[in-house]
C-alpha cells in the first residue's frame, strides 16, 4: 500500500479524528486565551535543549508521527504532552500516547512522567540539564520519542494484539547538554534506560540537534510571518545498544531537518521528515506537532490580592 493511500485511510480513522480534535481544541484555546509565544524554544521533536518551561506556565502539545515502513503496515502515532514549569529550574511533564496501524487496530500505548532540572544557576558555554523519566508503555508503542537499546523495525511487523500485552515499566535518565552561540542552539542528549519490571540490560541512546531562528532581531512592528517567528534546524538521533552490546549497529538511526513556526496567537507548529540511516530504520518518519502555552496557570488557583 502506498503511503498516500495509507494517509487517506488513516484520515478516516478515529485516531486521526482524535488528533485533529486535539489540534482544533488547541486552536480554540488560542482564541480565548491571552497572546503569548514561546520564542526561545528550539524546533526539536526528540532532542531536549536547556530551555525549561517558564514557572507557572502550562504547555499543551499534540505531536504526531506517521510512517509507511518497508515490509510493515503503515502507522500513525499521536502523543499528547502537558508541560508545566514548577520553578525556574524544574519542569514537569506528563505524556499520553497511542497509535493506529493500518490493517490492524488503534491502541493506547501508555504514559510517561518526566522531570527536568537545571543544576547550575547561570548560563555557561555548555548548560547541563538532568532529566528523569518513569514510563509505562507497552511494546506496541510507536511514538519514537527516543530510540534506545537494540530496537529495529522488525517489531513493526508484529500485530498490536501480540505487542500490547508486553508491558514495560522503565526508568530513564538523560544528560542534556545545550549551548547557545550567536543565535544557534546546539543540544546533545545522552540517554540511559533500565526496565524495572523485567531483567533487561541497561539500554542507551543519543540525540543531537542544532537550530537557529531565521532572524536574530525582533521586528519593530507586530507581524505574523516575520523571519524571527520561524526557526529551522536539524536532528540526528538513534540507539546505542545495550550494556552488553554497545554500538550503533542493530539499532535505528534517523536524521532530518526540522522547522517551527510561532504564530501571534500563541500556537507553535512544528514539522520534520526524519530519514532512516540504516536497514534497521523506517524509511521516513513524518512528524508534525502543534503546541500552545497557557501563561501563569497557577494564578488561576491563587486568591486575588
Amino acid at each position, binding site marked *: 500500500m502506498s503511503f498516500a493511500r495509507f494517509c487517506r485511510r488513516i484520515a478516516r480513522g478515529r485516531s486521526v479524528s482524535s488528533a485533529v480534535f486535539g489540534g482544533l481544541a488547541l486552536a480554540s484555546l488560542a482564541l480565548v486565551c491571552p497572546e503569548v*509565544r514561546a520564542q526561545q524554544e528550539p524546533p526539536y521533536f526528540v532532542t531536549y535543549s536547556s530551555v525549561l518551561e517558564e514557572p507557572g506556565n502550562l504547555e499543551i502539545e499534540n505531536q504526531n508521527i506517521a510512517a509507511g515502513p518497508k515490509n510493515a503496515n503503515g502507522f500513525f502515532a499521536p502523543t499528547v504532552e502537558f508541560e508545566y514549569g514548577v520553578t525556574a529550574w524544574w519542569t514537569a511533564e506528563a505524556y499520553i500516547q497511542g497509535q493506529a496501524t493500518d490493517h490492524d487496530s488503534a491502541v493506547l500505548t501508555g504514559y510517561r512522567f518526566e522531570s527536568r532540572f537545571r543544576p547550575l544557576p547561570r548560563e555557561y558555554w555548555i548548560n547541563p540539564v538532568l532529566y528523569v523519566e518513569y514510563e509505562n508503555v507497552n511494546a506496541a508503542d510507536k511514538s519514537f520519542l527516543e530510540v534506545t537499546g537494540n530496537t529495529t523495525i522488525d517489531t513493526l511487523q508484529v500485530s498490536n494484539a501480540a505487542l500490547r500485552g508486553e508491558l514495560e515499566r522503565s526508568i530513564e535518565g538523560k544528560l542534556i547538554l545545550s549551548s547557545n552561540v550567536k543565535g544557534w542552539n546546539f543540544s546533545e542528549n545522552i540517554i540511559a534506560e533500565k526496565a524495572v519490571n523485567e531483567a533487561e540490560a541497561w539500554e542507551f541512546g543519543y540525540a543531537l540537534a542544532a537550530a537557529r531562528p531565521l532572524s536574530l*532581531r525582533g521586528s519593530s512592528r507586530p507581524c505574523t510571518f516575520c523571519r524571527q517567528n520561524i526557526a529551522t534546524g536539524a536532528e540526528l538521533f538513534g540507539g546505542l545498544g545495550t550494556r552488553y552490546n554497545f554500538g550503533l549497529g542493530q539499532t535505528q538511526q534517523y536524521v532530518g531537518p526540522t522547522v517551527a513556526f510561532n504564530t501571534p496567537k500563541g500556537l507553535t507548529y512544528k514539522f520534520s521528515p526524519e530519514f532512516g540511516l540504516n536497514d534497521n530504520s523506517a524509511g521516513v518518519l513524518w512528524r508534525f506537532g502543534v503546541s500552545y502555552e497557557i*501563561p501563569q496557570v497557577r494564578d488561576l488557583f491563587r486568591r486575588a490580592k
Partner: protein
Amino acid sequence: MKSGKWGWVALLAVSTMCFAKADGAWMKKVPQGDRARTNPYAANADSIAAGRNLFLNNCAKCHGENAEGKGTRPSLTSARLRIATDGEIAWLIKNGNLYKGMPSWGGLPEQERWQIVAYLRSLNPRSTEVEHAGEQQ
C-alpha cells in the same frame, strides 16, 4: 512518620523558592565585564518598539503588559533598574535568577535580549548611584 516530616520540609523549601520575591542580590553577582557592556541598540526608536513587542511576547505574562509587576513577580519600573547598567540588565535576562523564580532567557538571540534592554531602559531612564543613595536616605 519521619519521612512525612521531611516531605513537608521539602515542600516548604520548594514553595519558598517558588514564591520568593526578587531582592536585588543578583546585581552583586554580575561580573565586571558584563556590567560594563553597552547596548548596541540603546535609545534607538525601532529597537525600543521591537523590544516592546518582544517584552509582550516573552515577559509580560509574568511582569505585566506595562512592566508593572504581577502578584509576587516584581515590577520592572523601579529605582533598582534605574541604577542598573544596561549590561547588568542584559546579564539578568540571559542568566535569570533561577532560585528566585526568574528563568534564564539565554535561548533568545542576544540581539533580541538587547532590544528588550532598550525597551526597559526607556521605562527606566538611567540615574546615578549618588542620586539613588540620596533616595534611600
